[in-house]
């Protein structure tokens, strides 16, 4: 795992709650709001289950700490999106909270329903981008959520031990996190 320069993180005392909201303007319509909301809920929950940080959806986009939106092309942050595939999304290190997804992608929450060969799993990308929001940079571990690339129709939404160690070194462990599971994974990975 890697951090951004200066190891930035959300700095208020732990445990803490971060609010997130979806842009009322910059959204897609190929998925329902419920599907998008649920995909992000699952993504946020994965990180919240390993660190003493929880995430709550806020109604007021303007005051939310994490702002999520889908954008086309040049959207004013100096990193224009490039259309279908190529770059899928980007986000910003703490404590900016901006999480941007390329609206040109064929976003999917169920590959059984979305048949396109270019479909991209929303939950996997959301989980990855939340890792950036929390302060993790890209990992060299191919199985890690924080590995930078994702093939169309692939799903990589479960945190790898590399992701967990990285984020816990920034925020500490969630008291409810089963450290035995981490040890088990370590052991099985080593034996593997």
């Amino acid at each position, binding site marked *: 795992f890697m951090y*951004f320069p200066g190891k*930035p993180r959300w700095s208020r005392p732990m445990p803490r709650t971060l609010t997130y909201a979806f842009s009322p303007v910059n959204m897609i319509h190929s998925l329902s709001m419920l599907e998008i909301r649920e995909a992000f809920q699952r993504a946020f929950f994965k990180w919240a289950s390993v660190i003493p940080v929880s995430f709550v959806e806020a109604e007021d986009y303007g005051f939310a700490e994490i702002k999520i939106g889908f954008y086309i092309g040049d959207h004013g942050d100096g990193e224009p999106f490039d259309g279908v595939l190529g770059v*899928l999304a980007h986000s910003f*290190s703490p404590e900016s909270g901006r999480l941007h997804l390329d609206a040109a992608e064929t976003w999917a929450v169920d590959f059984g329903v979305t048949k396109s060969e270019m479909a991209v799993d929303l939950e996997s990308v959301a989980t990855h981008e939340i890792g950036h929001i929390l302060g993790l940079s890209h990992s060299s571990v191919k199985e890690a959520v924080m590995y930078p690339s994702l093939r169309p129709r692939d799903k990589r939404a479960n945190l790898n031990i590399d992701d967990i160690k990285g984020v816990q070194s920034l925020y500490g462990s969630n008291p409810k996190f089963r450290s035995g599971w981490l040890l088990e994974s370590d052991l099985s990975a080593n034996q593997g």
Partner: protein
Amino acid sequence: RTILDHQAFTQPATKIAIKNHNIQSFINAGIGTKMLGIAQFKRYLTRFGYIPMYNNTFTDEFDDKFEVGLIRYQQRLGLQVTGKLDSNTVSQMMIPRCGVSDTTTHNNHHHITKH
């Protein structure tokens, strides 16, 4: 000599678009080689932080800076380190990805703090 589709190399810096049958043609390229399409890889590696800016001009010459960038990319992405445009490396570059730079020396605006 394989004829490459010039249109394939007019993509944004974030996209490597090469037909599969053309990937092989890059394998033997090394320092000093000039080959249509190298500039596209230079743009890509610069965009994601592996080589410094070429003053916004990217030639099709396989130079030493490009080789260093390739090696960094292969190390960072857990690929076999060859310093060449081998098929695994080119294929990896063609996979969709996150737009955040892989290194800490580029796209500094992505690493800001809100005050």
